[in-house]
C-alpha cells in the first residue's frame, strides 16, 4: 500500500468520523453548550467533503484548503476560549486572575509567533504557499501555547475538568501539536516532506476525532476522595508536634 493510499484511507475514515461526531453533537444538542466547537466540527466536515470533491483541481484545491484552514485555525482559537470560559465558570474566585494570565499568555504567544515569522528561513514553494505555511505555523504556535497554558493553569490551581471539556481540549491539543510539528517540518524540508505531513495530519485528526467522541460519550466520573483513618491522623499530628517542640 503506497503513502498516497494511506493518506486517502485516513481522509475517508476521517470524514466518516467527522460525520459521526457532528451527529453526536446534534443528537445531544451540544451546540447550546459548545457553539464554537460545534461550528468548528461542522466546518471540518465541510472542508473534508469539499476538499475530497475538488482534489482533481490543484489550484482550486489550494485556495479552498487555505481558506478553510484559516477559518479552522481561527475557530480553533475560539474553541480554546470556549473551553477556558467553561472551565472557569465553576470558579468565580479565579476568574479575574485567570483572565489576566490568559491575556498575558496571548501577548507572549503573539510576540513568539511574530519572532518566528520574522526570523523564518525561506520556505520552498510559491510565494503564496510559503507565506501561508509561515502564518499557519505562527497560528499553531499560539494555539498550542494557549492549550499548554490551560492545562498548566488547571494543574497549578487543581481545577477539575468536566469530561466533555477535557476531551475537547485534549483532542484539539493533540491535533494542533502534531499539525505544528508537521508544518514546521514542511517549512524546513520543503515539498518533499508534504506527503508525510499530510499522512501525519490525517492520522492525528482521526485520533482527535476519536478522543472527542470518546470523551463526549463517556459518562462523567463521580468525584470521590480517600478519607484517612482517624488513628493515622492522630499519629501524624503527634509526629509534627514532637518536631515543633524539639
Amino acid at each position, binding site marked *: 500500500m503506497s503513502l498516497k493510499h494511506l493518506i486517502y484511507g485516513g481522509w475517508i475514515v476521517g470524514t466518516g468520523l467527522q460525520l459521526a461526531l457532528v451527529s453526536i453533537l446534534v443528537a445531544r444538542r451540544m451546540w447550546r453548550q459548545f457553539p464554537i466547537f460545534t461550528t468548528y466540527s461542522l466546518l471540518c466536515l465541510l472542508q473534508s467533503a469539499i476538499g475530497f470533491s475538488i482534489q482533481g483541481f490543484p489550484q482550486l484545491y489550494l485556495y479552498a484548503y487555505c481558506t478553510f484552514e484559516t477559518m479552522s485555525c481561527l475557530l480553533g482559537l475560539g474553541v480554546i476560549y470556549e473551553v477556558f470560559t467553561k472551565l472557569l465558570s*465553576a*470558579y*468565580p*474566585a*479565579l476568574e479575574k*486572575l485567570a483572565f489576566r494570565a490568559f491575556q498575558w499568555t496571548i501577548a507572549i504567544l503573539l510576540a513568539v509567533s511574530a519572532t*518566528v515569522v520574522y*526570523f*523564518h*528561513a525561506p520556505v520552498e514553494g510559491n510565494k503564496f504557499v510559503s507565506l501561508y505555511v509561515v502564518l499557519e*505555523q505562527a497560528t499553531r*504556535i499560539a494555539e*498550542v*501555547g494557549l*492549550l*499548554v497554558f490551560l*492545562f*498548566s493553569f488547571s*494543574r*497549578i*490551581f*487543581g*481545577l*477539575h*475538568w468536566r469530561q466533555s471539556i*477535557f476531551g475537547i481540549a*485534549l483532542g484539539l*491539543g*493533540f491535533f494542533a*501539536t502534531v499539525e*505544528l*510539528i508537521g508544518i*514546521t*517540518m514542511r*517549512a*524546513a524540508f520543503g515539498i518533499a516532506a508534504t506527503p508525510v505531513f499530510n499522512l501525519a495530519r490525517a492520522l492525528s485528526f482521526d485520533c482527535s476525532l476519536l478522543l472527542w467522541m470518546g470523551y463526549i460519550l463517556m459518562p*462523567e466520573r*463521580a*468525584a*470521590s*476522595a*480517600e*478519607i*484517612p483513618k*482517624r488513628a*493515622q*491522623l492522630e499519629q*501524624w*499530628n503527634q509526629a*509534627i*508536634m514532637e*518536631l*515543633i517542640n*524539639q
Partner: protein
Amino acid sequence: MMITMIVIALALGALAVLYGAVRRRHQSSLPLRPVDVQALRTLMDRDDELFLREKLPHSRFRRLKRQRILVTMSYVSRISSNSSVVMRLGEAARLNSDDPQVAQAAGQVIELATQIRLQCMVAFAKLAAEFAVPSLQLTPAMLVPRYQTLRENVLRLGALELQGAAPVAVAI
C-alpha cells in the same frame, strides 16, 4: 534551522503536558491529607518566632527557622491539595443536586477552596523567600482561619445531607 529545532522541542513539550494531563485524570481518586490546624497555627505564630530569635544564637535560629519552614511548607502543601479535593467535591455536589440550598452551599465551598488554593500559592512564594533569608517575616497569617472556615463550610454541606461531605470535613 534553529527556529525549527526550538519549535519542535516546544511541541514535544506540549505533547508531554497533554500526556501528563491524561495520566493525572485517569489516576484513582485524590487522597485527603490530614492537617492539624492548631500545630500549623503554632508554626506560623510570629510571637513564637520573635521569642526564638531573641533567645537563640543567630546560627541556631536560622537552622531552626528553616526546619520550621519546611514543616510549614508540608502543611501548606496538604492544605492546597485538600482544597483541590474539596473544590472537586463541591463541584460534584453543585452538579448533582437539585436542592438550591445545597447548590448555594457548594458554591460557597468552591469559592472558599479556590481562595485558599490561591493563598497557598502566595504562602509558598513567601515561605521560599523566608527559607532563603530566614530573617524575613512574610508568612501570611490569614491561611489558618480561612482553612478553618472551609472546614466549617464543608461540614455545613454535610448537614445538608450531601453524601461524603461530613467525613471529608473531619478528615481535613
